[in-house]
């Protein structure tokens, strides 16, 4: 759970989807709001399953939500 190289656009996508709250997204994907908070801050890398669930909520491909940028 160290600062990682996986970045995401969850925050941006939430705002593009009717300013969805962190709590609303958390409920939809079945995690706590704190987990969404950690994900947005790139302090936690989600499991593949959670990543797919988030992408599904926003109806976009996985790579539009998450990007991997190695050094």
């Amino acid at each position: 759970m160290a600062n990682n190289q996986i970045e995401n656009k969850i925050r941006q996508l939430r705002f593009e989807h009717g300013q969805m709250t962190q709590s609303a997204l958390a409920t939809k994907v079945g995690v706590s709001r704190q987990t969404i908070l950690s994900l947005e801050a790139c302090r936690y890398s989600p499991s593949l399953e959670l990543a797919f669930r988030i992408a599904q909520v926003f109806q976009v491909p996985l790579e539009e939500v998450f990007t991997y940028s190695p050094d």
Partner: protein
Amino acid sequence: MDISAREKNIWIELAITGVVSVYYFYNNFRLSGWTEIASYEMGLLVRDVIILSIVASIALYALFARENPEQKDERDRAIESRGNAFAYYSLTVLCCLLIGTIMLSEGIVVLGKTSAINGPVAMHLLLIALMISALIKQATQLFFYRRG
């Protein structure tokens, strides 16, 4: 402070572990200097510790943990497993230290007495090791929750 119900529960567990441990070891040391175990006062102390744990748990949960913690998600489980791993490492190190101390202490002056570490002292040292590992588990979990 933005704090989840689960994190709040860990703070409460940490407080209870700390209070009960300090109470037990302070009174135990005052009573017997850790070298005796089977006495009437020790029995009373164990009873008091159990009552204190129950009362402290009820009081702290009633005061601070009114909402039910949400279901554990994958991040909670990851943090919990980190806490368990740190606690396991610390318990292993402390047990190895204790084993080494017991082996080396034969005939060496221990706690002001000329005997080796006896059963009650070993038991208390093991209890301290368990208490420390429990504190390390809870502190580790809180560290990762606070870090975000």
